[in-house]
Every structure is written in structure tokens, then in C-alpha cells.
């Protein structure tokens, strides 16, 4: 009787660890496939993605990996998609434009996945504008903490809307910083001032980042969320500053796809 219990316990432990390790293997397998749960063809792509000896049961998990996540309506972000012209917009030559439904939908999807840190700062809202006064610029943040998204944010092959939105929101976060916070970032990154001009030695993750400490900050936030491993390796000082000064949940939420 006692031996029976022990035997069953051993069987249970073996089974538990077996399925547990399979779950991990399949999660890695799905990650490697680069298939996104938001992809419309997620299920079919997953079902034909090659398996090997170690992952031969992973096709059984496809339904789980491609499960539909309802896009919830986030009233905060919804209230931030604004019509018309931002208050005191400093470039008079820039014209406003109406949002297309598809643009609103895309923007909404991006906003859904943003970490809550972005919703905790004072922010006026997003405005749709036609063309930036600066060549190939997809977005701008103003002193009043308004963000203009130009045609290039939605149409230009060089830009992805989610990265543009994160970059501009990082500017908004920076505009909300106190002197101490601003200085803490600059000191960490080695920014220096000489007669009002700022400079630091590299490396920089993008040439835009060389322009000013603010641009450097926005670029680094963008990399922290989109290319976390890259910033961790190439700019560990920026990585550790962001890790320390943002919440533990400062990463993308699951993408909704339904």
C-alpha cells in the first residue's frame, strides 16, 4: 500500500516535470518562430512551423499561443485622440487633418500595449497633422505636451507607428521631469554643458540621440521597449537608469488581436 503511494507520487512528479518542461520548450519554439498572436494567420502559420524531436508536440499548443485577446476600450487613451489643432502649436505652417478610422484603430492597438507608466504623466493628447515642417519627421511633441502625428507616422516605410508613438510619449515623460530627474539622467549618461550647448561621448543607439539629452532619452526609451537586449548590451548605463526610474512593469503588455 505504502509502496503504491510512493510509486504514484514518483509517476506524478515525472509527469509534472515532463509536461512542465514541454511547456517551456514550446514557448521558446513559438517565440523563435517570430509568429505573433496578433497575426491573422497565426494559427495556420503555427501549425506548419517546423518541429523537431524536442518540439514534436508543440503544434498541439498552437491554439493556446494564438488565442484571441479582446481589445479592451481604454477610456484614458481614447480621450487622448483629439481633433483639431493643439493649443499654442508653435509651427504655424503645419496643418491639421482628420483621423482616418484605420489610423485611429492602429493607434488604439499601439496604446493598448503600452506600459502604464505613460498614462501616469500629464499629457494633452494626440493630434493628426498633415506634414511636418521638418523633412521626414513622423511626429512632434510640443511644450504643451501635445503630440502631432504626421502622414509619415502612418505611411512612410522608414517609420513604424508603435515606435513613433513610444518615442514621442518618451518626450512627454521627459517634459514632466523635475530638474533633479533630468540631471540624474544627464549625469548617468555623461552629458556635459558648455556655454549652453550639450554634448557627450558615444555610443549612441541612433544618430538622432546625439542632438540633445532629450532626444537621447527618447531614443533610449524606444530601444528599452523595442530592442531591450540591444540597449542592455550597448548602453548599459541607460538600461540601468531606465530600469531604476520606471516601474517594474515597464514593458509591453500582451497585444490584443480580437
Amino acid at each position, binding site marked *: 500500500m505504502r509502496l503504491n503511494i510512493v510509486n504514484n507520487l514518483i509517476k506524478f512528479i515525472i509527469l509534472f516535470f515532463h509536461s512542465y518542461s514541454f511547456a517551456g520548450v514550446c514557448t521558446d519554439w513559438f517565440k523563435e518562430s517570430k509568429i505573433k498572436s496578433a497575426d491573422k494567420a497565426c494559427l495556420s502559420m503555427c501549425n506548419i512551423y517546423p518541429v523537431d524531436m524536442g518540439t514534436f508536440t508543440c503544434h498541439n499548443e498552437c491554439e493556446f499561443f494564438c488565442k484571441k485577446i479582446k481589445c479592451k476600450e481604454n477610456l484614458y487613451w481614447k480621450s487622448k485622440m483629439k481633433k483639431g489643432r493643439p493649443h499654442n502649436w*508653435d*509651427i*504655424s*505652417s503645419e496643418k491639421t487633418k482628420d483621423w482616418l478610422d484605420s489610423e485611429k484603430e492602429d493607434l488604439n492597438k499601439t496604446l493598448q500595449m503600452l506600459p502604464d507608466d505613460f498614462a501616469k504623466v500629464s499629457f494633452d493628447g494626440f493630434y493628426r497633422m498633415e506634414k*511636418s*515642417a*521638418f523633412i521626414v*519627421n513622423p*511626429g*512632434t*511633441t*510640443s*511644450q504643451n505636451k501635445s503630440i502631432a502625428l504626421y502622414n509619415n507616422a502612418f505611411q512612410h516605410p522608414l517609420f513604424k507607428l508603435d515606435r513613433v508613438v513610444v518615442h*514621442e510619449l518618451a*518626450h512627454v515623460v*521627459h*517634459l*514632466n*521631469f*523635475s*530638474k*533633479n530627474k*533630468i*540631471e540624474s539622467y*544627464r*549625469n*548617468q549618461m555623461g552629458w*556635459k*554643458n*558648455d*556655454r*549652453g550647448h550639450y554634448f557627450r561621448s558615444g555610443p549612441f543607439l541612433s544618430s538622432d540621440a546625439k*542632438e*540633445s539629452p*532629450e*532626444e537621447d532619452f*527618447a531614443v533610449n526609451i524606444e530601444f528599452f521597449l523595442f530592442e531591450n537586449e540591444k540597449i542592455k548590451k550597448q548602453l548599459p548605463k541607460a538600461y540601468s537608469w531606465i530600469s531604476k526610474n520606471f516601474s517594474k512593469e515597464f514593458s509591453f503588455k500582451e497585444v490584443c488581436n480580437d
Partner: protein
Amino acid sequence: MIKNNIFSALVVFVTFASGCATQVKSNNSSAVKSVSFDQIEQIGLGQSQEQVIKFLGVPQSKQDFESKGKPFIRFEYVNVDQNLSQRAAMVFDSSDKKVSAKTFIPTEGDFANSLNDLISEKYKNSKFIYYMKPRCKDHSASAESIAINLDQGILINYIKADFGVLAISWMEQYELSDIVRKLELCQKSQAQPK
């Protein structure tokens, strides 16, 4: 056996104590005071490099650089007690080694850390012109604003939201006029239809 243990404990203690002593010594040697606002203010443009070293001490770093085709030397002084962040910069014309500009970075505890205190304490009767940093090169706005006194050749970078001072720079009038000209040009170009 006991003797041996006492001996090893003694060795450990001596090693530890000597380590501490070295550390204290090195702390002492680096416990040079950071330069102060008053020290920087007292150095006049046109003073020699030797006089600056005599007054402020040897800088923590020196760099040669070019600005508008002219060679300059920059001395950098750091905050000895705050992550060695920048405290001051002195710029010399390479040809005559005389001060052509200087910058001071205030930190918490300095009266110059707040724009209101700085102005009421040092420049009560001076007239400053305040500029929002325009978006000329940068595609997005800055949290910073700039206060300029052309007569005294002073430029103050400060945070608009809390009036915290980021840097105070002194420079030749012609250089500051050039900055003002660029700021105004940029503001105008933004206002004009393209």
C-alpha cells in the same frame, strides 16, 4: 592551536585594518571640495590659464576642440561628491590661453540651483530676456528654457516647470549675441509658412 588561531585572527585584522586605512586615505585625497559658484564667478574672461589653475586647482580633464574653425581648450571640473558629474567648464582660446567662456553647474544646496534665488541674490537689477528653447534642429520640445543677459554675457539654462537651474554660462558678448540671433531666427522661421 589557540596561538595559531590568535595569529591568524591578527593577520586578518591587520589586513582588514590596513585596507580600511588605504580607503580612508584615498577618500581623503579625493575629498577636494567641488568648485563653487563664487569661485567661478570671480574668474574674469581674459584671465590666464595659470591663474585659473592657481585659483581652482588642476582640472579633472582637459580637451582640445575647435569651434568655428578656431582652436580652444576646455578644462573640466567635476563634482567630487556626486558621481563625478560635471561641475564647471572653463574654455580658453588656444592662441593666448586666456579664458573666453565659463560654465557652472549648480546642484542641490547651491543657492544658484534655483533661478529665483540666483537672480535675487546675484542679478537683482539685471535685465534678463527669457526664451523658450525653440525647436529648430530638434523635432520635439525641450523642458528647458533660457534666460539671457546680453550686457553681462550671461546665459542660464533652466527647467521651465520648476525653475531649477541646469547651467550658468558666461561668455563674450559677441558670442552670446550670435546665440540670441540664432534663437530669434529659429523662432521666426517656425512662425513663417513654408
